[in-house]
């Protein structure tokens, strides 16, 4: 059987820098300057007249210089488009700039661009790494390029090089929020949560920065340390009114998790409500992961908008909706965004494993283990594939590595995989015994859901390898699953479409709303009441109605 994803925490996401820079977490909460940088229209018209008279690239360059003023851009583009269509003298860079400006203005390509170069005979990360190295060769102080390089280095397993890149970026831009958060995320990736926590906790910027405070609270939880900013963060939410909801989403979300763990459900829900007023991709993925904990409906326009921009959340949603094609699509997009992370790879390898596409599953496992050779979930999947293929020695080697590192925690999984291997060899009695031990051990650690999941795998294996007591095993699995259904087992059943193991969705509990509309028939007014409602509350309440 395969493992579930590890528990998600609200630690910073490490996306490509270009993506992060477009998100609120890289921005400032301060209002834009009141002074607008407007250009001189008469000057521009004179420059255009000059170009029309001489039509030299130099004069066109003068016209293009006005493109720095957004108010003059449409007029500059008119001239640029005319230059291209009339085949006027212009440089390659000028043509490319006009085309780029035109596209960013929502228009189509003005020039025929060569198709993007995609190397088919090299590793997909080779070309981006080469480009980043070139950028850094002529400009070694480019901290943001170092972050991108570190991500690709981490993705191909060069964690030492990645760490050097991260350290250099930190030295170059020690106060850059994106650099600090990325460095913290990197230390989590290399299993140094203490270092990640200390970096954020001790940083001079953290006490005034809600994004760093949120990271500190989540990292303290991960490192098993006491947060230095939990109380300050709560006060910050109350006292700081100059920050928009978008800048407070992760801080509120981190506090919500802490309140939940402390048993303060009401406060936890209220903090979660604030976090969901304008969530980012990280917060929305966290909300989907924890939606049964908070019992809040995730259907406001802000939430749906954030969901549309978060491949991670869309994967989780597709998994819960039992939509394997969507899982595949979004998990691949998530992997493209966070190529170093093993979480999307775990999901993809599991999905292909469920589908019976073992070679594809194997390929993703290899890619994931390159980035993190000790990833528990991927190693479990790898051992599963080895057992199924009857490769006993290889399976034993993987399980040995897992047992030495994770000891008791891994034992029920290991037993189930060994049971599968015995089934594959036709030694059903030995297999039954091992599967039985696995189920017992899951029950001992009070995980009946995992025990039921294990029984499902056993039933499927008994069918695949023609176990003489297949019907009896399937009936037991069916009974366990009807009592303890999980999304993982339901996804597996959806894909395998076993007629004798019917898919039974878990009962969706009534959810709470983040706000309600109040209609006052006397005044004929409709107002919004903010606050988490009781479970199953109506969307619209008519005032005075019984």
């Amino acid at each position, binding site marked *: 059987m395969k493992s579930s994803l590890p528990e998600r925490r609200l630690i910073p996401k490490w996306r490509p*820098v*270009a993506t992060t*820079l*477009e998100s*609120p977490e*890289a*921005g*400032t909460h*301060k*209002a*834009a*300057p009141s*002074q*607008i*940088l407007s*250009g001189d229209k008469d*000057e521009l018209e*004179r*420059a255009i*007249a*000059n170009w029309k*008279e*001489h039509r*030299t*690239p*130099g*004069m*066109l*360059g*003068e016209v*293009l*210089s*006005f*493109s*720095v003023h*957004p108010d003059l851009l449409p007029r500059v583009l008119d001239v640029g488009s005319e230059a291209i269509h009339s085949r006027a*003298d*212009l*440089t*390659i*860079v*000028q043509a490319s*700039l006009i085309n780029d*400006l035109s596209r*960013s203005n929502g228009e189509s390509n003005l020039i025929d661009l060569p198709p993007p170069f995609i190397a088919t005979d090299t590793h997909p990360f080779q070309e981006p790494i080469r480009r980043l190295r*070139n*950028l850094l060769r*002529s*400009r070694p*102080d*480019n*901290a*943001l*390029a170092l972050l991108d390089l570190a991500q690709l280095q981490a993705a191909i397993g060069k964690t030492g090089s990645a760490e050097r890149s991260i350290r250099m970026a930190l030295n170059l*831009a*020690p*106060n*850059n929020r*994106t*650099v600090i958060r990325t460095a913290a995320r990197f230390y989590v990736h290399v299993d140094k949560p203490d270092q990640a926590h200390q970096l954020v906790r001790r940083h001079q910027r953290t006490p005034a920065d809600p994004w760093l405070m949120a990271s500190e609270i989540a990292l303290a939880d991960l490192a098993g340390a006491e947060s230095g900013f939990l109380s300050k963060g709560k006060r910050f939410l109350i006292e700081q009114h100059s920050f928009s909801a978008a800048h407070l989403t992760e801080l509120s979300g981190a506090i919500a998790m802490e309140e939940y763990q402390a048993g303060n459900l009401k406060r936890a829900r209220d903090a979660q409500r604030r976090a969901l007023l304008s969530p980012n991709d990280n917060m929305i993925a966290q909300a989907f992961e924890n939606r049964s904990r908070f019992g809040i409906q995730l259907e406001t326009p802000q939430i749906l908008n954030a969901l549309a921009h978060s491949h991670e959340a869309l994967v989780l949603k597709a998994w819960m909706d039992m939509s394997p094609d969507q899982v595949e699509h979004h998990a691949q997009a998530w992997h493209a965004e966070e190529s170093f992370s093993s979480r999307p790879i775990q999901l993809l390898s599991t999905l292909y494993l469920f589908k019976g596409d073992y070679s594809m599953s194997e390929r993703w496992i290899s890619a994931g283990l390159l980035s993190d050779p000790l990833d528990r979930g991927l190693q479990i999947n790898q051992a599963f594939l080895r057992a199924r293929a009857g490769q006993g020695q290889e399976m034993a080697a993987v399980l040995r590595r897992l047992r030495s590192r994770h000891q008791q925690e891994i034992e029920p999984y290991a037993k189930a995989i060994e049971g599968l291997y015995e089934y594959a060899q036709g030694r059903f009695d030995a297999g039954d015994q091992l599967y039985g031990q696995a189920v017992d051990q899951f029950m001992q650690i009070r995980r009946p859901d995992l025990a039921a999941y294990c029984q499902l795998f056993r039933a499927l294996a008994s069918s695949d390898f023609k176990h003489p007591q297949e019907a009896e095993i399937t009936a037991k699995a069916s009974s366990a699953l009807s009592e303890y259904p999980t999304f993982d087992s339901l996804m597996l059943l959806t894909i395998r479409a076993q007629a004798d193991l019917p898919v039974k969705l878990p009962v969706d509990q009534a959810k709470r709303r983040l706000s309600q509309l109040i209609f006052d028939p006397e005044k004929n007014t409709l107002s919004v009441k903010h606050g988490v409602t009781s479970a199953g509350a109506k969307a619209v309440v008519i005032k005075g109605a019984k």
Partner: protein
Amino acid sequence: MSVISSPPIAKTPKHVMEGVTLHSGWTLVEQLKPSTGASGGTFGVGYRATRGGETAFVKVIDFVEALGKPDPILELQNLIGNASFEKEVLAYCTERGMTRVMRFLGHEYFFTNGPADLMGRVSCLIMEAGETDLRRLMHGNGPASCLQTLQVMDDVSLALAQLHRGGIAHQDIKPSNVISVAESPLRADRTMKVADLGRVVRREQTGPFDNFAWPGDLRYSPPERWYGHVPTDWCDSRDASDAYMLGSILLFLSTGTPIQALVVPLIPNQYRPGVWGGSFDDDLLGVLVDAHARVLEDHLKPSLMPEIADGVMQIANELTNPDPVRRGDGRARRQIGRPVGLDRIHQKIHALALRAAAIQRGRLKS
């Protein structure tokens, strides 16, 4: 000094000087219409003037227009202050032997309607005339060759080094202010000089533009000025600005586009000038460094001779560093007083230009 159409304006004495011969013997033969970005510093009208076989540029200012303004005293004060400042700066540069700055040839007052009509009196600033500016020199086959680019950069960097040595920061270096002159018979190619000293600031002397947020053309300004950041130190705020604009000339020559127009589209929306509400801090600088690096790598590098590409890229990086505190020659900036070191950069450009010329000669022979 382009000749283009402009909207009709009320004629004052400065507009009717065509055909007039000044006391110094210069005859104003042609009125020049204003070119793009002709900030000029003063509200003058330009003329091409001749004297024997010589040609000069004469900037004529009158005082009539100022009298019609809502506050004529203040307007006159500004006009006189600006005109005197420009004249003094030009004269100073010529006296100091700044060979790559347009020369000062003289100044005189002239009565357009005879001595009795005081309102017809004009101020005439006579200076060296150029042939054409960088914008018109770049034609036909697109950007200049790497050798031509370095030769122009050699002259412009020398001009700025000369100005900086004299305690003057130009603050308005752009293609229209880099003028070719055919004065040197020894050089087959043109000599380029820097013109329009109407917006300069002086280190040891107060001037009319000292307190301007940005005295020059914002399209060509260094990035810190887009965000309203004015460094306190002279070198960072003034000499470093000239260095950035010199870097922009390098990009203009190599690509046909100033660096500013190439950088702005690479800045994420929330960091764009006019949108970013934060300070000129590490968050913003990281973005600007990345955007500049990509422009130089993608647009400048492909246009360079491979043999000297690293040297030119290093200079381009030094000149266009978005951080004014670190902009300029690395060694110079570590010295006492942290000079930007355009004199050192000029030497490096000069050496690269010589090398490029040698490489080109070698290629032609082979």
